[in-house]
């Protein structure tokens, strides 16, 4: 069944998808170039909003909590840890690999309230938003 969109619409839509794929490809290439030049592994991570702040998780398989280095400069969070979960065969080609990632935290994070936990190789940071503004009374 055709939805009956015009050729012009189809063409624009096709171009949009192509552009999105190009952008994604540029980002993927930049990430792999960074990994190769820095001899590191950029871990998967996810930042989710919560009711009063944010939760950041970073997937660090094989890492123990005392191996993680976390530093904060302004709203830039820098994390490093040894990456030991690469097969021996691959390890020969890439000695001493580290996980490295720098994440820009949202501007409204109260950096003094950040709490970090580590469980099964998953680093979890709970962050609260800075309390600002004032309460509006409803009459």
């Amino acid at each position, binding site marked *: 069944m055709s939805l009956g969109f015009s050729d012009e619409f189809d063409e624009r839509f096709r171009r949009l998808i192509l552009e999105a794929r190009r952008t994604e490809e540029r980002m*993927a290439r930049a990430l792999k170039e960074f990994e190769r030049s820095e001899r590191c*592994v950029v*871990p998967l991570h996810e930042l989710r909003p919560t009711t009063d702040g944010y939760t950041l998780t970073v*997937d660090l*398989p094989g890492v123990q909590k005392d191996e993680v280095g976390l530093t904060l400069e302004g709203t830039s969070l820098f994390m490093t840890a040894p990456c030991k979960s690469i*097969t021996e065969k691959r390890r020969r080609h890439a000695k001493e690999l580290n996980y490295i990632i720098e994440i820009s935290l949202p501007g409204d994070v109260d950096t003094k309230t950040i709490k970090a936990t580590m469980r099964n190789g998953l680093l979890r940071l709970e962050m609260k938003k800075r309390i600002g503004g004032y309460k509006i009374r409803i009459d």
Partner: protein
Amino acid sequence: MEKKRVQDGSLVLDGLPDTGLVGTIAALHLVRAKGMSPMVRIDSDLLPPVAIVKEMNLFEPLMIYSSDGVSVIASEIPIPTEITKPFARELVVWIKDHRCRAVISIGGIPEPARSEIEEPEVFYLTNSTEAFSATIDLGKTKQLDSAFLVGPKAAFLLECFREEIPTIGLFAQSFPNYPDPGAAASALTLLRRSDVFQVDLEELVKSGEEMRVRFRDLMRRTMGEMERAQKSREMESPSLLV
């Protein structure tokens, strides 16, 4: 392109990349544990020009592995959103052509609190419980009652149900965006009633850390496709069919 004719009447296991790469990890573990060989190379003008190099051989990124009456669909690349439906239709044509007896699709269901869960729960969706009574232990497994499914598995399951192929979807609670070997192990546990699926799951759990690192690039690429396919709908509830 079929190197050798896959025997008719096989059981098909779908391991296409999706939430937490649960099906992909389960499929890979099964292929390795059973020493399955690639029997069918899947190619299309609509797929990106990718080849896998291994020991002086070139392979398509999408293959069907087969042995002992089981055929496993596995992929090194996510299925591009634009071709999801025609791809699912072609797979079902192949399944019907080979008179495959049933389809098992393993996937993940996004669980934001997954890190708090030690043993992920598995939910099922089927059009024929009888067809799987000898293969799958559904004793305490809950049905997937109401949910959105999005992506290649959704298209594939719809097509299988439409064509009345005995089909079951097994969905383990999974990290939405991280490879989840623990969820794959939970789904495979249900299949252990059948001899052909008797594989060492401890080995899968042991190699879980390595898999999480190795699959991170495929996970990133799959996440890109999932966003294009409106994957976040899986965290919503359908409102029409209630």
